[in-house]
């Protein structure tokens, strides 16, 4: 398949004119320098004697440095735009200037490494936890984590979900042995602040609110083509955590019943939560299953 063409007469660069690896490493450092090419040049000891013009052509329209700055600006602002879209509520809370500075520091510590730019923001919640902004807004790491999780479940694996009509086809006496598992495009976030309220306010009214603190479990999941989030009800957290790895429905029922209050009917609570999970497209059946369990992929 790979038929080689005869080599042509072409001029060759003189030996030692450049080393491609060193050249790329140098350009990378200059382009990714947090405060631009000027700072990169000042900090760099890898330049040959002379100046940047020994490497890049400049002319009377644009100097070599100005040409490189086009790439440096494109690098930063492309990623800034991506992260602004991904962390819109975080941006709303801290404002443009703080977010700009946050991203400057973030890219220095976590430069992109993956082929897809979708991964560029995956470490931002962890970075915010160590950043001074989280002293002014202590709920910021939780908020960023919620926003990042929404993106990740949006692109999470597809799998057939269990719906109510399929469940009804199973004789009730067989329900306890059914193995249920939460959908792979879902996750439970254990948070220190009620940042779901911050998200909701930002999305629905474009307003900023200060959330109450306190342990909160938020469910993030994809249903159809949309990512959703909601606060978990009492009894749901333990049961859904069990179901992450697949567990018999009887064990899920025990987990829910254990959390029922004395004046609450455990069976009613189980029925209500199961109906909600089926309606949300949150669970899948992994067996044993007497009939075809196929549901809609989500």
């Amino acid at each position, binding site marked *: 398949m790979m038929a080689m063409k005869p080599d042509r007469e072409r001029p060759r*660069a003189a030996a030692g004119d450049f080393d491609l690896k060193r050249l790329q*490493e140098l*350009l990378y450092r200059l382009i990714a320098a947090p405060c631009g090419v000027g700072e990169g040049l000042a900090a760099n000891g890898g330049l040959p004697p002379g100046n940047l013009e020994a490497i890049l052509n400049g002319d009377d329209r644009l100097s070599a440095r100005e040409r490189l700055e086009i*790439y440096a600006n494109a690098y930063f602002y492309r990623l800034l735009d991506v992260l602004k879209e991904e962390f819109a509520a975080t941006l709303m809370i801290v404002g443009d200037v703080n977010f700009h500075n946050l991203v400057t520091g973030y890219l220095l510590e976590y430069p992109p490494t993956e*082929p897809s730019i979708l991964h560029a923001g995956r470490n931002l919640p962890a970075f915010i936890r160590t950043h001074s902004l989280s002293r002014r807004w202590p709920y910021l790491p939780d908020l960023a984590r919620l926003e990042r999780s929404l993106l990740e479940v949006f*692109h999470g694996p*597809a799998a057939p979900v269990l719906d109510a009509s399929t469940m009804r086809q199973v004789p009730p006496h067989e329900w306890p042995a059914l193995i249920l598992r939460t959908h792979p495009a879902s996750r439970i976030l254990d948070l220190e602040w009620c940042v779901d309220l911050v998200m909701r306010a930002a999305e629905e009214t474009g307003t900023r609110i200060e959330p109450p603190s306190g342990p909160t479990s938020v469910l993030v999941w994809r249903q159809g083509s949309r990512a959703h989030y909601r606060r978990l009800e009492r009894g749901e957290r333990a049961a859904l955590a069990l179901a992450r790895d697949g567990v018999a429905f009887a064990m899920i029922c025990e987990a829910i019943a254990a959390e029922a209050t004395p004046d609450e009917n455990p069976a009613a609570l189980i029925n209500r939560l199961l109906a909600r999970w089926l309606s949300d497209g949150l669970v899948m059946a992994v067996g044993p299953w007497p009939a075809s369990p196929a549901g809609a992929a989500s």
Partner: protein
Amino acid sequence: MSHCEFPALGFGVGLRRPHYSEIVDTHPRMDWFEVITENFMVEGGRPLEVLERVRERYPIVMHGVSLSIGSTDPINHDYLRTLDAMARRFEPAWISDHLCWTGVGGHNLHDLLPLPYAEEVVSHVAGRLREVQDILGRRILIENVSSYMAFACSTLTEWEFLGAVADEADCGILLDINNIFVNAFNHGFEAEQYIDSVPVERVKQFHLAGHQDHGRYLLDTHDHPVRAEVWRLYERAVRRFGAVSTLIEWDDRIPEFRELQAVADEGRSRCDSAMRGAAQPGIDAHR
């Protein structure tokens, strides 16, 4: 290079998020779609569902931005495995990427950086391209990138470099007409000479797009209509390379789909006119 391997698909546009619902729900008139491969390198969800639905009705081409074929980093085999799996699943008419490097030292700048145009670099890139093509089991197209910097150590013109890499790797060329125009302005060469010098038998696809004029330089932004000068270059390219598959790129400030249809129709019309006006022997020589 056979035309079965790279069939003439006609006139297509990029598959972009604002148009997902319209395309899936109404199946608008369009010859084919090009997808940014990395945007679909995910486990599931809406983008993959849309791509499956689109693929049921239209030919697609997978156009990558992170192969980084010119990097001095080792070839990313995880990336290639994912690319190969996607190709098996979606059966694109072909796969393309850029003649550039996107990062080094394990980092990704998410940009398409130019290479020095030198013999050593031709060998470096062509060797990696051959390896990639062997792994994928198919030839791919490599695209000329827009650029704002050029290297003092270059000994070849950009078009000599592009042709040499394609010849040595035995791959095809995705010729971006707008990028030629942008680079001609930014680096001071004749765009027509570029078009007239690229090896005819290698060119299997065109890109057309708009750019921004920043006065001292042109910026390849894909957010404006195709300029008249670029259309004229396109017509020149059609006369030289024939009616190869043409793609309208529009990635920012994306207009309504019907406007993209109109641009694709204009491309078709200009292509037909250019073909009618072309000297038939010259055209027949490579068809």
